């Protein structure tokens, strides 16, 4: 058994989800290697080299991979994996992995296993279906397993090693039917939503984007990441990538604070692995109370300033 982990990064930093994926790989086999594709990878490699559990890192530094276009990445990974003895290829279940990994699976004629939350054995995994309202245990009969990993279910690996790095080149034709135009990065000095210890989210109850300032003060004090319900995002209160839930980001912080969020199943799907959930909602019948360890009934506009003061 030999596992290959595809590393997600932004040519400067390794994404936390990559370290979680390495941990998942280690649960399958002791023989874990990583593949990094990108451009100008020195910083990325410096960080990745420290990963425990990795036996080897392969690096392909090429301008083709400056931006993560799935067409080029999947072709290159297929070429690399072809003729090797990898039994598993893992990617994080982030938008990067979701975009790329199914292409790799199609190229290799494998049925991908999406978003695994638990490893039962080298061919059997758990994954949530129906917005996490059911958990399926699936066994793969493909000779190679192609998997995306829900990073919140696996601790990031420790960084105490010094892993061997090998440089590779790749020979693929640039795909001319797709080109990168730009990446409009949401500006934020806050921790990443999917790896933060504390997350505070606002919903439709916030009424407008301005009012998210009430959450900001608290997030500042707690060092928390900020999120939102779909309703708040759809209404344009906050950027799209703040959406937490079945079809947005999955989070599992030590503490999740839901403010003015009713608790629809699609939202709950994204938060129910949180260690503690607290909520503020003026409707004591709101479903969010059924999932909250600590629920506070009342008007958020009154309660939030008080909370900020008490912290």
């Amino acid at each position, binding site marked *: 058994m030999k596992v290959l982990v595809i590393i997600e990064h932004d040519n400067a930093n390794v994404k936390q989800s990559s370290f979680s994926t390495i941990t998942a790989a280690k649960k399958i086999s002791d023989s874990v290697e990583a593949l990094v594709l990108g451009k100008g990878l020195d910083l990325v490699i410096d960080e990745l080299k420290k990963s425990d559990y990795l036996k080897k890192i392969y690096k392909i530094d090429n301008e083709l991979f400056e931006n993560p276009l799935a067409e080029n990445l999947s072709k290159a990974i297929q070429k690399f994996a072809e003729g090797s003895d990898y039994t598993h290829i893992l990617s994080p279940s982030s938008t990067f992995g979701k975009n790329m990994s199914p292409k790799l699976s199609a190229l290799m004629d494998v049925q991908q296993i999406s978003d695994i939350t638990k490893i039962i054995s080298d061919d059997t995994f758990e994954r949530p279906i129906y917005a996490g309202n059911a958990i399926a245990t699936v066994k793969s009969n493909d000779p190679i397993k192609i998997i995306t990993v829900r990073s919140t279910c696996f601790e990031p690996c420790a960084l105490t090693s010094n892993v061997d790095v090998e440089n590779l080149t790749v020979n693929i034709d640039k*795909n001319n039917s797709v080109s990168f135009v730009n990446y409009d990065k949401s500006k934020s000095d806050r921790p990443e939503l999917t790896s933060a210890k504390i997350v505070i989210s606002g919903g439709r109850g916030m009424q407008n984007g301005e009012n998210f300032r009430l959450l900001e003060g608290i997030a500042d004090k707690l060092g928390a990441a900020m999120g939102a319900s779909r309703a708040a995002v759809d209404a344009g209160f906050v950027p799209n990538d703040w959406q937490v839930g079945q079809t947005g980001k999955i989070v599992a912080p030590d503490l999740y604070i839901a403010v003015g969020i009713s608790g629809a199943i699609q939202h709950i799907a994204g938060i129910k692995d949180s260690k503690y959930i607290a909520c503020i909602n003026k409707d004591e019948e709101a479903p969010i109370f059924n999932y909250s360890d600590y629920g506070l009934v009342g008007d958020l506009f009154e309660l939030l300033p008080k909370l900020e003061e008490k912290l």
Partner: protein
Amino acid sequence: MKALVCVKRVIDYNVRIRVKSDKSGVETDNVKMSMNPFDEIAVEEAVRMKEKNQIQEIIILSIGTDKSQETIRSGLAMGGDRGILVKTDKDQLEPLTVGKIIKAVSDKEKPDLIILGKQAIDDDCNQTGQIVATLLAFPQATFASELKKNDDNTLEVTREVDGGLETVKISIPCVVTTDLRLNEPRYASLPNIMKAKQKKIDVLEIESFDVDIKDRLQVLEVNEPPERKPGIKVDDVDALVDKLKNEAKIL
């Protein structure tokens, strides 16, 4: 341009899911079924492009049991021109199989644009569009929140990705998968629902395709998720802060 829109019949998003007691799956008997919400967004986008004269024909494709004809009809009522049902008795097919069927249909119909949802809300796989694009060697733009057609036979697509918005340019023919912010699907009007009854749906047997439909994944069991232990309501902000400090020990 010709568009192929892929729609899946799934349990309605409002239904409370019940796991079968024999752990073989979830209860679907007497449960309200609807078009996968992301696929409604896909149909809507195609219809809007047709209204702008960017598309001349919209084909609505579903792969599923005979009942998926209802789902295709909903797409026709929203503005699709004709339907194709690839019929099977199996009530769930894997994305790789579905992808291969969509490829085969596409080889015959030669659409310029294939639009799918980013994710089916039953299997939560988020794979099919990417598979179709790969099998056809078409460029893909997944998780689209904005789509613009250029004059030079390219689309500029804004994608919802972690950390922000990415824009890519892809040339036609291509595959797009929809995210929630792309548009707000319309409700079909009664006259359009009536008109849709006259529109043609071709029914093809899945066996007539040269595609192996055997599952690669075996579902061993389906279980209820672990329940969160019930919490409490606290009286005021002080009590909340106290709990977070002294019980949860987080602050």
